[in-house]
């Protein structure tokens, strides 16, 4: 909660780093990222499907995904590959837009695939992202369900605090 607001800028940058170990060979894990037949099977949060999933895995090639949420809302995403070094490294820009193509979030994502012994693969995803401030406003307008949930959680939280008294 530090970036930007005092200087009046509407952008704020953050980084997410996640590491996972998969019981699958590196070449297959790499393919799961670059072959749309694989990628469409797992991309996105639980319960989401990917009715559009197009991948052109070469430098300058694009990645186009439309995620469909369980409530039917569609979330388009466009990527451009900056580096492709099979089966070790993948770098792409990822841009999330709303249905009208307005940019909500821009990310630069690096994916590292490392051998981890016995046919396993260590995957590291590092994504540096910038979100528009209005993205947050949109969250409130468009994701009322999420807010109802938070309010429920707030209610639970408050109830627990009450128990402790």
């Amino acid at each position, binding site marked *: *909660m*530090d*970036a*930007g*607001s*005092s200087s*009046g800028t509407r952008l*704020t940058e*953050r980084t*997410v780093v*996640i590491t*996972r170990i*998969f*019981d*699958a060979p590196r070449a*297959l*894990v790499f393919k*799961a990222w670059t072959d749309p037949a*694989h990628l469409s*099977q*797992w*991309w*996105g*949060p*639980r319960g989401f499907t990917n009715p559009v999933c197009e991948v052109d895995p070469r430098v300058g090639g694009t990645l186009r995904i439309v995620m469909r949420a369980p409530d039917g809302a569609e979330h388009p995403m466009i990527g451009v590959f900056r580096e492709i070094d099979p089966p070790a490294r993948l770098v792409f820009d990822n841009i999330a837009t709303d249905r009208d193509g307005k940019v909500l*979030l821009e*990310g630069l994502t690096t994916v590292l695939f490392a051998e981890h012994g016995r046919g396993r693969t260590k*995957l590291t*995803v590092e*994504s540096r*992202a910038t*979100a528009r*401030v209005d*993205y*947050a*406003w949109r*969250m*409130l*307008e468009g994701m009322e369900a*999420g*807010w109802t*949930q*938070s*309010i429920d*959680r*707030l*209610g639970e*939280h*408050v109830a627990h*605090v*009450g128990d402790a008294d």
Partner: protein
Amino acid sequence: MSPDRLSATFAALADPTRRAILARLALGEASVGELAEPFDMSLPAVSKHLKVLERAGLIARGREAQWRPARLEAGPLKDAADWIVRYRRFWEQSLDRLGDYLRSLKAKEKEKKRGRRK
């Protein structure tokens, strides 16, 4: 938290402008002026909203008299509103699914081998 405080919290959240102010604060603290700008509202009107949010325990204000930046109070609402939390969740859940998918591929492969042996 007293029942009075709880009703104050829910009342504060019932207003769309105040929810939008909270969303803005999810991205970092802001002064009254910065908050007023996108809403086409007077500073006293924004101050009034901030007072309601502060009373409800949803935000805190800085001490400096001149520039009292408002910030979201830590808590479940802050977590939910913070876009980076959502963004991290997106990646975590995608990678969970990738793990499940790779496991299902492996299971299918085993099945195939077993089929061939028969």
